[in-house]
């Protein structure tokens, strides 16, 4: 039998490996191997500290580089943030009211550089500190924290965009509505191509769906995004698109449950 201290170390070690997205097979084998080592060490009067140093975090650092990742957590988070940047930029470019200001530049650079890093750190923190060691499931407090963090994060994203829009600091240039639209369509093309190549159909669908209200208003009404008809058409399309997205998500999740 392994001591309670070593057993706790192994569980924390397992969760740390899961949080870092390490390969399942390697994870199971390494845990098994360490368990065997610790059992033999304890039988011979050695303790956990003499084998691993005692700190899960420090021990993981020495192993992390050698353990392959399977779910490529960091790459996925980075992709989501690139997508977020596109999501905030493309519709307003197509609409023609995108601002080329210093504030917007700072906003997008911060969102791309610090966004994924901060997101990963907080999610990893919740995963490591709020996962039940027995069931390996996130506790209720962890889920509440995730929800709270999601709300704060979205508030920061939207609030930051509002502030950048309201306080431009310095305007680099002003492009005509047509030039903005061409840039927007060009970026949309890149995003659609990129997501199709990567096989991320959901993102392809989502970016088209998000650009559709501005695009259809531009085609059918044209002119100023602040025009009443423009707002009505884009609002109607936004409503239809939202309904379609919700329906697709509903059937998709239902199919997953049935499977």
């Amino acid at each position, binding site marked *: 039998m392994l001591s309670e201290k070593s057993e706790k170390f192994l569980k924390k070690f397992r969760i740390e490996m899961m949080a870092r997205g390490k390969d399942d097979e390697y994870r199971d084998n390494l845990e098994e191997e360490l368990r*065997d080592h610790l059992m033999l*060490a304890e039988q011979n009067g050695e303790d956990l500290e003499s084998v691993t*140093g005692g700190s899960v975090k420090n021990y993981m650092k020495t192993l992390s580089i*050698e353990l392959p990742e399977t779910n490529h957590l960091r790459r996925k988070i980075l992709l989501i943030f690139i997508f977020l940047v596109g999501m905030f930029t493309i519709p307003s470019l197509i609409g023609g009211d995108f601002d080329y200001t210093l504030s917007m530049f700072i906003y997008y650079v911060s969102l791309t550089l610090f966004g994924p890093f901060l997101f990963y750190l907080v999610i990893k923190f919740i995963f490591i500190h709020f996962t039940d060691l027995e069931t390996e499931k996130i506790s209720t407090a962890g889920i509440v924290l995730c929800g709270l963090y999601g709300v704060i994060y979205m508030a920061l994203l939207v609030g930051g965009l509002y502030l950048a829009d309201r306080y431009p600091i310095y305007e680099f240039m002003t492009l005509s509505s047509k030039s903005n639209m061409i840039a927007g369509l060009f970026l949309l093309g890149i995003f659609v191509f990129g997501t199709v190549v990567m096989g991320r159909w959901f993102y392809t669908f989502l970016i088209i769906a998000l650009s559709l209200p501005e695009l259809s208003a531009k085609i059918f009404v044209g002119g100023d995004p602040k025009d009443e008809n423009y707002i009505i058409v884009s609002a109607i399309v936004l409503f239809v698109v939202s309904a379609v997205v919700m329906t697709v998500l509903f059937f998709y999740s239902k199919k997953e449950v049935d499977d």
Partner: protein
Amino acid sequence: MSVSDQIMKGLLDGAILALIAEDETYGYQIAEKLKEKAFPDISEGSIYPVLLRLSKKGYVETRMVKSDSGGPKRKYYSISTSGKEELRSFKDKWFKLNQGMSNLFGGDENVK
């Protein structure tokens, strides 16, 4: 990482490969043998990153063996053909390096 730490890291790879070449073995046994042979500055857990590295490079082969007493499975390591070649190359470099360093330091007394 200091120069001496880097040297130790490189040497540990060769030392563990040499131990595995002697006979099929497992983690705890490797750690014990390193202690027996007075390999310096080694914590037992530090052998696992090395074993993972050797395994990734294909220098060692592994197999999991179920315990008869209901304990955890034990992972056994044996040296592969490419591991044997790597060990030969390591030994060759080590003897040359050892000779060179001894010449450079001018014998044990000057090292101190």
